[in-house]
């Protein structure tokens, strides 16, 4: 009985394991100055109109109109992570039909305004989630759906779970439940529309943890 047969051929590491270029791109994206998202010319023109006597009527009306337009066409990117995604799909389907609120589930982050994080975010998934969030154009919003995305939920003490998606991206609306029924998610989306109508700054990241940071 020979114990030392020729070994099984060594499998080379697959080529997609080299993430270096993507990491460099991501770093570039992170260090991008905030200023290049705004147009200085547009800002000076609107500032001039606003300071003109009676001009504030035009700017506030334009603000209200733009916010109405924003809230009436919030396109969520389809990003299902776990069982919450089933409820999210039910919300998108004909019985609950968020399309009457102007929400079209869209399969590309580059055309979307909203990310519904529906499910458990693992530590391995978090960089991909951040990458998809970075690909969405401003202004953008995020809804954290379900206990797992809110705080880690039943898997909070697992070794591989991010304890709340607000440690990765800023979150506007938290929808509780495990999983939240479509009515809950609809309520959360209506709350989000209300926020967008007033263009409130509500998104926040989790406060730093003194033990770790």
């Amino acid at each position: 009985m020979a114990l030392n047969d020729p070994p099984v051929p060594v499998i080379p590491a697959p080529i997609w394991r080299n993430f270096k270029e993507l990491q460099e791109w991501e770093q570039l994206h992170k260090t991008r100055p905030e200023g290049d998202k705004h147009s200085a010319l547009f800002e000076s023109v609107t500032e001039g109109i606003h300071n003109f006597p009676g001009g504030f009527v035009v700017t506030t009306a334009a603000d209200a109109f733009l916010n109405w337009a924003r809230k009436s066409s919030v396109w969520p990117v389809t990003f299902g992570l776990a069982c919450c995604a089933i409820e999210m799909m039910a919300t998108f389907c004909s019985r609950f039909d968020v399309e009457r609120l102007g929400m079209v589930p869209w399969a590309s982050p580059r055309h979307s305004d909203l990310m519904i994080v529906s499910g458990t975010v693992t530590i391995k998934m978090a960089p991909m989630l951040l990458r998809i969030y970075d690909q969405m154009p401003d202004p953008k919003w995020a809804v954290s759906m379900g206990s797992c995305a809110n705080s880690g939920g039943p898997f909070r003490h697992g070794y591989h779970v991010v304890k709340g998606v607000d440690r990765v991206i800023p979150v506007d609306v938290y929808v509780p439940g495990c999983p939240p029924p479509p009515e809950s998610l609809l309520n959360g989306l209506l709350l989000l529309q209300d926020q967008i109508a007033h263009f409130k700054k509500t998104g926040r990241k989790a406060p730093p943890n003194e033990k770790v940071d």
Partner: protein
Amino acid sequence: MNADQARASLASTFGIDVAAAVPMVVSVSPDRWQELGRHAKEIVGCRFFNFLTAVDWKEQGLEVVARVDNLEDGVSLMLKTKLGPGVSNCASLTHVYRGANWMERECFDMFGIHFDNHPDLRRILLEDNWEGHPLLKSYAVDTPHPPYR
């Protein structure tokens, strides 16, 4: 080979008394681990490799457990070996069962057991830069993971 013949052959080769049960539990010392796997496959005819995992017995050390089945004759073997305290090296079964390849990688990932002469021993589920092996009893719950804490 039926169950009684399998018990007899295991007793004559390894000098251990195997109790009649389903599956039959066979415990050997780590240096005979690969020999046991080869015996199970070639003599007993257990050609189906069911799973391979490990148990952390704290101060008694790690125990590697594998189950193999002979589906034609309905014989199942539960192969066990205790590595002993502080030991994290074990012989690889990959040269006997090809299916052991990914199982042993997972075992290395979760328990940190180094399988000698394994063709491709790297992490399979967690990232390459992960610190520690999560299913060990010494791995603290809520170990922080920067940058996501």
